[in-house]
Every structure is written in C-alpha cells, then in structure tokens.
C-alpha cells in the first residue's frame, strides 16, 4: 500500500519555465517531507525538505509547498534548467515521537527540461 504517491511518472518542461512536481500522501502521522533528486547511475541526493508546521520552504530556485488538509505537497522549480533533468522522489517520515528517521518514498517523477 503506497503511502506516498507521485501520480505523474514524467514531466517535460521548456528551459526557463516553471516545473511543478506533485506528491500526495495518505498517512496523517507524517510530519516531515523531503524531496530527493536522482541522476542515472547515482544515488538519490537530498534537495529540500519541509516540516508540517510550515506551509512553504524556499531554497534558491526550489520551493516546496505543503497543504496538510489536502495531504498534498508540491515542488516548484523556477526557472527550470536542463541540468534539472532527473528523477525526483518525494519522501515522508514520522518525526514526532520517533527515534527512527524511516522514509517512505513515492515512485518518482522523471523531469525533462528541454532547451
């Protein structure tokens, strides 16, 4: 049973435009959310995170929005660059009262940014 869902397997965006990657979750206990980026033949690398006490977190070109009532988060990349082409994984964890930072991953969205 997938607790973290990324329903779009792929997204294609022109360079300079905004990329919006979406993620939904079902477990209301999740209180920390992360986005990872993965290039071929490499391991995932941490991109940005957000705690459930916030609804927005920004880091340069990357912004994550969290809508707790809808159990939905999104990653915005503005402006998109060809080097952003990668698979993006959404992940969630239960941080409160837990000693284990176990992550639950979505299936990923392949982002392609074309010139």
């Amino acid at each position, binding site marked *: 049973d*997938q607790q*973290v869902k*990324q329903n779009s*397997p792929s997204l294609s965006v022109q360079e300079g435009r905004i990329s919006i990657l979406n993620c939904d979750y079902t477990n209301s206990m999740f209180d*920390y959310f*992360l986005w*990872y980026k993965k290039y071929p*033949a*490499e*391991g*995932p*690398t*941490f991109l940005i*995170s957000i705690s459930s006490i916030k609804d927005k977190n920004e880091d340069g070109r990357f912004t994550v929005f969290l809508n707790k009532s809808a159990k939905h988060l999104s990653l915005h990349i503005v402006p998109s660059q060809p080097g952003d082409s990668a698979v993006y*994984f959404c992940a969630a*964890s239960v*941080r409160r009262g*837990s*000693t*284990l*930072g*176990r*992550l639950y*991953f*979505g*299936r*990923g969205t392949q982002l392609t940014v074309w010139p």
Partner: protein
Amino acid sequence: NAGVTQTPKFRILKIGQSMTLQCTQDMNHNYMYWYRQDPGMGLKLIYYSVGAGITDKGEVPNGYNVSRSTTEDFPLRLELAAPSQTSVYFCASSPHPGTRKADTQYFGPGTRLTVL
C-alpha cells in the same frame, strides 16, 4: 569525506548463489539503511540499523541478512539469490535523531544486481 560508498557497482548472480553487498560511510552516522529500487517503483526499506550491534527489519526483509559490527560498515547478505531480487540496491546513512539534518539520509551510488 567520501560519504557513502558501495561495492560492487554491478553484479550478475546465478539462482541460488550468495553474495554480500558492501556499504561504508565515513560521516560517523549512527543510522544506516538498505533500500531496493525496482523499475518504476520507489525505494523500499530492507533493513536498518540504529548503531553498531543493532539491526532491524524494514518493509521487505525476506531473503536478506545484515550485520553491523562497526559504525562505518553495514553489509547486506543475499544467501540464496532469486530472480525476484534483481534490483538496484542503495545504502544510506543519517545522523542521530536530534542532531542537525537528522532526517536527511545520504545515499551511496547503488549496486545493480541481476539474478539469472
């Protein structure tokens, strides 16, 4: 710092063979994890460890074993390889909860395993 390193990068096994996937981290992280990623799927947790001498099962532990004798190393053992274990295996580590970026896991480059 090399971060998290994994060996080998690729391996082909015959059904019934055994092998150990190696994982080492040099960041002095307490927590270590093994994931597998099947095509078109997210990462699934196989085993994890919260410190030397302590391991526990994750979501998909069947067919695997682990040990954690040192902080740095967390090998994953496949005893009787089966085609269903064909996958890409990622090792990861994270700092102790309560420390800065405790929820951030740092991943190795992966081992691509094929069982024929």
